[in-house]
């Protein structure tokens, strides 16, 4: 019997352990099938459920070695055991271990595993199917072209198989490879739904594969959902609903996720409040499952309640917030995916309902959140930021100064330099809300150099970043005192603001103008900012308004003029100069255009500018009124006395009342 040339295998030291590991390679390459088989079993038994061992063997090159064994083994009966064990070992490497999947695919194993599916020995077929399923669980699985007829035929041959692992493989391929609506349609037209639902009555593994694949085929596809629900008058839809009460947690989870997909695609099938409540309760219970089901349940819950106030209310009434916070506070190490799902669920719960936000914040959660901001996983950091953002939608809590502490602010500000762009985006959203410190003029954010950082970000190449930074600055300038405004302006200057008001992107222009609007509100001396550098900012505003801007930008621009026009005579005259620029006499007046806009907010803003320009307390009001009348603006207002919008109508009556006091007939 062949023996190895390395030292004895009986030593328990790590050196001999390593020897034993590398020794197994020569045995894998042995020409003796028994030796080879034993080596395969050894590797397989060591790596099952052991990520460290998987990594260790992977580094030593075990996967190509086993791939060779698989490739070299023929389909004869003698080789069956070798086929089974090598497939099992490779499947084990691929199971939940992305580096393993990559290595298995790189070793060219895929076609050899496929070959096993047509073996006459059931055990070989099983082993091949199971391994392929492991590969298809991963995002790295090869693309499966459902649009190719032969691929579709092969897929259906798998689904039609009586072997549960093979039919399960077919379902897995669909679950993980079907990505587009075209693929969904092609699969449905080929009758895949009818094939899949049969698996609901099959074994546990078939059922679970079926539920996963149903969710993929139905996702965001109302036609597919309609087809599915229509099958045998809703029989299978009911089956899936019943499976949410199954004794196996993974089955309960997958059926819930399937229902979440159906709900998000076509909510009309869920008229029964009881079904919605039950779905939420089941997902909440699954949060306590220690395994992968618990991880997936958390993300599933966040998907279900996203954007849906009624479901958030149901979840709140089912004590979701309290339960989730308790899980987070257990102190045990939770998987990143679960943490992400839990924080996202809390974020969704806090997204629309003030009761939820207050309830959440009352549970002493700030430490939990700030710890998560420092988590090693970027997805967890981003989820914690989103949670912060939504909790800080509570003006009541902002006003109470709940977030205005160094403990909260410092880690958030630090995340502005996070290596992950999704974290940067998320933290900008959180800071946008948290800087609304109604509670005190002292701002931790400013003390940590926040204004400088936002100023930098407002110069980003990415328009979304510029927009987000400006929005946060706008919020910082809301009701700000002159000291804060001067601090901001000292970095930005007129040129900086003018540049952003003329930004190529309309949303950036809009935020820059909204920021300017806040800058010139408050004490009257704030208006002077727009006159700096020979009135550069005010001229830029006027120029932009003359360019037929989008409505939202125009609204902010008109409010800038309104606010400036609430100042002194000089300020009012400067606004008139923008409305009626000398150089552009005869050109169409933008004020007239805005008064005729479909956007009532724009009409309102325009009317307010006029209210302020002809405010009776100001000496030049009469002359300005004459000019506005001659330009057709006052007559236009007379046409608007019955404006559909109450606010606009009331303001117009104010203006016309002032007109009358100047001797104009109503």
């Amino acid at each position, binding site marked *: 019997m062949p023996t190895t040339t390395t030292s004895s295998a009986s030593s328990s030291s790590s050196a001999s352990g390593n020897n034993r590991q590398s020794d197994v390679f020569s045995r894998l390459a042995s020409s003796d099938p028994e030796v080879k088989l034993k080596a395969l079993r050894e590797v397989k038994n060591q790596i099952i459920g052991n990520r460290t061992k998987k990594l260790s063997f992977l580094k030593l090159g075990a996967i190509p070695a086993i791939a060779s064994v698989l490739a070299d083994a023929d389909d004869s009966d003698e080789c069956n055991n070798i086929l089974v064990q090598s497939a099992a070992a490779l499947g084990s490497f691929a199971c939940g271990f992305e580096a393993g999947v990559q290595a298995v695919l790189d070793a060219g194993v895929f076609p050899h595993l496929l070959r096993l599916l047509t073996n006459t020995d059931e055990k070989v077929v099983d082993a091949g199917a199971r391994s392929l399923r492991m590969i298809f669980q991963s995002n790295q699985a090869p693309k499966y072209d459902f649009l190719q007829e032969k691929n579709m035929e092969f897929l259906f041959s798998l689904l039609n198989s009586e072997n549960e692992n093979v039919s399960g493989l077919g379902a897995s391929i669909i679950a993980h490879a079907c990505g587009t609506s075209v693929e969904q349609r092609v699969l449905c037209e080929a009758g895949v739904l009818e094939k899949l639902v049969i698996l609901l009555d099959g074994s546990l593994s078939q059922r679970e594969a079926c539920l996963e694949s149903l969710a993929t085929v139905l996702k965001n596809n109302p036609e597919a959902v309609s087809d599915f629900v229509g099958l045998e008058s809703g029989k299978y839809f009911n089956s899936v609903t019943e499976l949410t009460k199954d004794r196996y947690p993974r089955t309960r989870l997958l059926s819930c996720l399937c229902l979440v997909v159906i709900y998000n695609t076509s909510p009309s099938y869920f008229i029964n409040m009881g079904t919605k409540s039950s779905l939420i309760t089941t997902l909440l219970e699954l949060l306590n499952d220690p395994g992968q089901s618990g991880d997936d349940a958390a993300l599933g819950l966040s998907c279900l309640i996203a954007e849906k106030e009624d479901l958030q209310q149901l979840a709140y009434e089912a004590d979701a917030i309290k339960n989730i916070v308790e899980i987070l506070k257990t102190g045990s190490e939770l998987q990143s995916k679960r943490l992400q799902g839990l924080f996202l669920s809390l974020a969704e719960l806090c997204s629309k309902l003030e009761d939820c936000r207050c309830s959440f914040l009352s549970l002493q959660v700030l430490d939990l959140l700030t710890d998560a901001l420092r988590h090693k996983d970027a997805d967890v950091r981003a989820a914690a930021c989103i949670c912060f953002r939504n909790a800080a939608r509570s003006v009541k809590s902002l006003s109470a100064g709940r977030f205005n502490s160094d403990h909260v602010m410092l880690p958030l500000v630090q995340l502005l330099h996070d290596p992950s762009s999704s974290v940067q985006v998320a933290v900008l959203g959180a800071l946008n809300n948290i800087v609304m410190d109604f509670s005190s003029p002292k701002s931790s954010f400013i003390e940590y150099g926040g204004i400088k950082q936002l100023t930098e970000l407002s110069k980003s190449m990415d328009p979304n970043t510029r927009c987000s930074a400006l929005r946060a600055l*706008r919020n910082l300038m*809301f009701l700000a005192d002159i000291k804060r405004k001067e601090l901001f302006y000292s970095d930005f200057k007129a040129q900086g603001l003018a540049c952003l008001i003329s930004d190529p992107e309309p949303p950036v222009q809009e935020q820059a103008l909204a920021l300017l609007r806040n800058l010139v509100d408050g004490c009257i001396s704030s208006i002077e900012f727009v006159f700096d550098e020979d009135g550069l900012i005010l001229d830029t505003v006027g120029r932009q308004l003359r360019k037929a801007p989008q409505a939202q930008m125009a609204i902010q621009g008109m409010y800038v003029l309104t*606010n400036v026009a609430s100042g002194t005579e000089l300020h009012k005259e400067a606004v008139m100069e923008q409305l009626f620029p000398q150089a552009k006499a005869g050109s169409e007046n933008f004020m007239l255009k805005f008064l005729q806009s479909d956007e*009532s907010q724009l009409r309102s803003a325009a009317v307010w500018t006029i209210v302020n320009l002809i405010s009776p307390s100001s000496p030049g009001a009469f002359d300005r009124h004459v000019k506005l009348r001659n330009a057709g603006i006052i007559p236009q207002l007379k046409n608007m006395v019955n404006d559909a919008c*109450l606010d606009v109508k009331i303001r117009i009556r104010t203006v016309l009342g002032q007109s009358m006091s100047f001797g104009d007939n109503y």
Partner: protein
Amino acid sequence: MPVRVVESNTPAQVSGTDPGNRSPLPPSSLLGAGQAFSGTQNVSNQQKEEAWRVNVQIQGIDLEHGYLCGTMEALNVPMADTPVITFWEGEIVDGKNYTFYTGKWEATREDDMRHWSKFPSFSPLQGQVETDGGRQLDLNNYPYIFMRWKEQYFVNVGTDCGLTIAGFYYVCFSCSDGSISGFYYDPNSSPFQKLELKTVNEGRSGFSFSSYELQ
């Protein structure tokens, strides 16, 4: 006599349905975040006449939920060394989220009607409110906004300051000039303490508006 309160011939518009509008339009620009009001609250009782100067600032408004909030600052309060600031939350009587009937805070329907009827602008609505709670009223097109304001906590003093925030205000806001009147209701305090406020323009000759946007 019950009467619809739409003033013009144009169809009544529910707030928020203006075409192209990104979000519901506030019923009045003057009832918006950042707007400030100043005036007095009459706290007289049988023993003496007394009035406190009051400043109010709106901090947030959520029309979809009929919610608004802000702060109230009371000056020259005898028991306090400094102005006393409270945070309050408001319910907008919009017929959707809230009606004229309070249904809590120890206010009965009779208390409600007794207070609302002290506002002249409520008279045209009174009949309909008494009949069916005002369900048919198009409040979104009425030039007055009715609210209840309830103080939630003291911002700058302790709860042992000798003052109470147990009650709430019935409030009427005039969309045309932004003036506010209100009556404080607390079964344990002097009845009908009147709040009267006007918009504040910080020394400006006209109106100025700021805004913020929560993400």
